[in-house]
């Protein structure tokens, strides 16, 4: 059902944790399946220099958050903002059809964190 890359990220997710005084913070939840994600970003010179998250959810949600944070790290705010769930799914090498919606959580949480950063 899940490919090797998804399982790898699920088994050993990257960038897990919280952050003291983040420059941006986003929290999203899926009313559809109850998954919840909190994302923290540090921004320096318009670039994401640190990123942490916590996720409550299934394998797809965990793997998506892990790879999305990998992808966002080092990107400019504009580049990170342009990331979509399909970019995340593609980077994971695909997700089962029914699990695509789980990747939306990572996209949304990142966008929320960026919005919070911009509002400051």
């Amino acid at each position, binding site marked *: 059902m*899940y490919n090797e890359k998804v*399982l790898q990220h*699920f*088994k050993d*997710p990257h960038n*897990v944790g919280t952050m003291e005084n983040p420059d941006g913070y986003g*929290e999203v939840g899926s009313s*559809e*399946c*109850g*998954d*919840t*994600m*909190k994302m923290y970003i540090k921004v320096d010179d318009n670039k994401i220099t640190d990123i942490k998250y*916590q*996720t*409550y*959810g*299934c*394998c797809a*949600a*965990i793997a998506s958050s892990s790879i999305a944070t990998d992808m966002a790290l080092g990107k400019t705010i504009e580049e990170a903002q342009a990331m979509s769930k399909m970019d995340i799914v593609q980077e994971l090498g695909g997700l089962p059809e*029914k*699990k695509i*919606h789980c990747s939306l959580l990572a996209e949304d949480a990142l966008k929320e964190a960026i919005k919070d950063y911009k509002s400051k």
Partner: protein
Amino acid sequence: MGIYLDHSATTYVDKKVLAKMTQCYSETFGNTSSQHSYGRDAEKGVGAARAQVADAIGASPGEIYFTSGGTESDNWAIKGVAKFARKGHIITTGIEHRAVLDTCKYLEAKGFSITYLPVDAFGAVRADDVEKALQDDTILISIMFANNEVGTINPMAQIGQIAKKHGVLFHTDAVQAVGHVPIDVSAIGIDLLSLSAHKFYGPKGVGALYIKNGTNIEKIIHGGSHEKGMRAGTLNSPGIVGLGAAISLATEVMDNEFVKEAALAKRLKDALLQLPKAKYNGHPDDRLPGNVNISFDGIEAEALMLHLDLEGIAVSTGSACSSGSTNPSYVLKEMGCTIEQARAAVRFTIGRCNTTKDIDTAAKKTKSIVEKLRALSPLFADKGEKNV
């Protein structure tokens, strides 16, 4: 070698059972309807299996009808009684297997009225509720013997008495219970009982419906005179022989297995409940011996199940996020669990070959994965609260 802790989903076929089946596939392979010696030999095997099934549940051989499994047996029992009665009211529960629930919903759409009884916090139906739900036009009570998710065993004898007292037919989906706990259909007062071979070390795709002599029921599969004209279709004789052998063996080892599985289940439960905020689901005593169902706060069961799978340990979730949106277990919700608890429930079902070592490994791995997932979870904050 992996550790299989999902015996309520299905079991492997016991080697002794398989040997009997193999012989039936290659040697006594005749069609039981044939008049020649091949047919007679096959019929002999089926007849012996019929007696074995009857013996195991306190019925007579003429009351056993072979089917393709639990789902067909449930469909036949409920639709068959409904078709005979043409109209009326059926009492069931909200925690039945889908084979019963969906069949009742189908009949509801066809004009039958259905009462879906609630269950208590342990997942058991209250006998009083059954009696109170009876109407003048009640044609059937269909209540599962033991629940597939939490293993809770219903007060069958009391329900049987109520059914008898009011002259209402009593069907039970005993798919999870047969071969694991003693069942005597006449002592309990059961009119119809569904069972399935692959839940007790027999093959998949074969089961039986016990129909008490004189029960008003119609057939649902038409086409030939098999099974006294009640269930058409060439008999799956190797499967049926396997069913017979498996149920005999299960009955023989039942007492020992019960004690062994219950002890292993207790060991696993005690180990896992050392984790904070872990909720044990189901009845503490009146349950299938090998069932342990626990909700670990702050985690999603599918994630735990997959992590265990990567470690070679097979368990199942009460809720499977497979349909796009997570459908938390309706059984746990009926028992009053919160949606979070239902989403966090994992079912371990211990079987005949599991060892103490299996249990200790599974407990250890589960504990470390739960801790890992909780560290990842924004929903979990250990406040050191006591387990419930």
